[in-house]
């Protein structure tokens, strides 16, 4: 069973914050996040291309691309590197719309901080902000990014969404 990251109680409608404690030194955490993203990112779920995605890549420099690579060699951009400060801080733009399409003008921001926490531990803080860029779909997207694994509540919510779309379609 995966440990649930802690969600901050601060409630900003334009931002989602997550904190997770990792039993790994700061350098290792940074390396796994930035160089080996394709080994852990849930590519089966969170990808936008038509092809099955096989890797997620961050080009290691300011202005670098952040993209997925499909099994057919195609690539789909997700965003750009807005700040590159090994091994402390990384800011990426997430330019994937509410319809899961790339739009370079979207520019929501993800800041990730890697904070050493005693020997061999790192506290990783993530903030996904500027969700106001989603316009009238902000709340919908905030729910997707923020939600924690409360299955009863989620299934009730899903039932509601399914019922609403079922109604809308008839």
């Amino acid at each position, binding site marked *: 069973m995966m440990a649930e990251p802690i969600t901050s109680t601060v409630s900003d409608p334009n931002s989602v914050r997550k904190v997770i404690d990792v039993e790994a030194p700061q350098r290792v955490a940074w390396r796994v996040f930035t160089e080996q993203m394709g080994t852990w990112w849930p590519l089966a*779920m969170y990808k936008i291309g038509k092809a099955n995605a096989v890797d997620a890549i961050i080009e290691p420099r300011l202005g670098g691309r952040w993209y997925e690579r499909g099994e057919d060699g195609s690539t789909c951009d997700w965003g750009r590197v807005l700040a590159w400060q090994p091994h402390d801080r990384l800011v990426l733009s997430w330019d994937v719309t509410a319809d899961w399409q790339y739009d370079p003008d979207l520019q929501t921001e993800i800041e990730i901080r890697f904070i050493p926490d005693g020997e*061999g531990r790192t506290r990783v803080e993530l903030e996904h902000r500027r969700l106001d860029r989603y316009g009238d779909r902000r709340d919908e997207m905030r729910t997707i990014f923020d939600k924690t694994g409360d299955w009863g509540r989620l299934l009730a919510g899903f039932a509601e969404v399914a019922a609403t779309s079922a109604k809308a*379609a008839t």
Partner: protein
Amino acid sequence: MRVTRSAVSQHLQVLRAAGLVMVKADGTRRLYQVDRRGIEALRRWLDGFWDETLGAFKEAAERAATKVRKS
């Protein structure tokens, strides 16, 4: 299955309206197949984007740290 054809048809129509299956007409038959876009949206809905992603990152970083310690 102990269920009538029309009941099956009604259930499938609900799934189609929810975007979880697609239908193709083939003469008088209706062929249903899973709509992957809908299923993916459902997975996103259920799982929580950043919890899922950071949980997977934590596991990978901890595996890497264990390897570093052993070597």
